[in-house]
């Protein structure tokens, strides 16, 4: 799987200090035509922004933050607003056994990548 991911345009490796986060979306029960990402997930900047804001406000299950953590998130939010943060989104489709049946039995995953 990692080898196949490498066949897609490789993004530059993360540098020390880069913030890396993943969000996995399951599309249960849809083999041939899995649902797309919701609007909230497609607009990645806003998606990340809402999560950072929730963490900052300590809403839901987010724990209360120390001042240093809160400052870090504030800085991240400011950077986001100034378009100083960059996101990549990669979509991988496979079925629930992980057998990649969604590509019609082809031995490769269907992958899309956006810069």
């Amino acid at each position, binding site marked *: 799987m990692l080898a196949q991911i490498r066949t897609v345009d490789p993004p530059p490796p993360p540098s020390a200090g880069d913030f890396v986060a993943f969000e996995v979306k399951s599309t249960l029960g849809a083999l041939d035509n899995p649902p797309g990402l919701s*609007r*909230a997930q497609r*607009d990645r900047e*806003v998606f990340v922004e809402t999560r950072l804001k929730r963490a900052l406000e300590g*809403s839901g299950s987010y724990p209360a933050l120390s001042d240093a953590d809160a400052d870090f998130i504030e800085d991240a939010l400011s950077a986001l607003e100034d378009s100083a943060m960059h996101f990549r989104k990669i979509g991988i489709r496979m079925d629930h056994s992980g057998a990649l049946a969604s590509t019609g039995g082809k031995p490769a995953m269907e992958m899309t990548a956006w810069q």
Partner: protein
Amino acid sequence: MAVECNNPRQPKIEFAVLLEYLATRSDRVDHMIQRSHRRMADWYQAPGPTPTKAIRAAEYISEAEIGLALADQRFHLGQLFAHAAISFLVDYSRNLTRLDGSRKGPVGLWSNAFAIVDCLSAGRFNNAQILRDQAVQLLNQRAYKAQELYAEDLELQKDPENYVEIIPQRLFVFAHELMGQRAGQEKQPWEIWDIVGDQDYIKAARAVYTEDMDEAAQTLCQLCNLHVQYSNPFPADDENDHLIGFEFDTPIRAIWPTEIFAWLRLRQERGLPLPEVEHPLLDQPLGRFEPNIPTQWEYKPWFVELVQKLVAYHPRYADLPRMVFEQP
């Protein structure tokens, strides 16, 4: 005589519950306000390439102070009016950064809409017009990310194999249709701008200057119901935020219908009679329309300082004191 609304929706949070909730958070919010003041001072010491850090702090303080005042029972209307001034500053500054740097802002439509209706509701008509003009410029430059997404969605929708749910803009189209009506424009070119708008809100905004009092009352009732429908006071997970259809997603916004005040304020500006309706949303302390615009505005010292610092920071803020303090 007040018209009774058909099927009025009950607001999703009661005023008493809101106060209780705010009281439990007041210590934390107080702490966050102090922190925001510190961040603003940090920016004064070492301004970065943009004023974002200070602007974000100002935005937080303004909203949090309303909450604190409500929690301490020392809330008064002047605060709502002062909040409109800060809303203007925040959105104006963000738009300037966006227009200047030709960047695609990560946010935009939603915050612009709130800033415009807040300014209108407080009678800051010139400020609202400035924000409107900036937004139109950004729309024409296709600088809003949402425009791209809508265009993509509409394209995808042409293939029946694709399931595409399009969530329309509500407050944004409402605010801009209102501004359009004020400027005598019949409608806004949403198709050209690639924005999908909620028809109910568009219709309500276009009826703002109606002389038929029945229609005015019905529109007002509908605006109240729409406000309740699209409010969610305690967003907790993915399904609850403005990206998927809830416009009013804080406890205070859920029962503080500034877009309705904006609608009423525009009628008042033209000297048209204001419809009176009975609706639970308007029948609570935050739902009352204040007919008198203050002649003397109360500005917080930190806000005045921020404006001065911005003027010193970059020449493009030179007009700011006039816009904010002299001709709101």
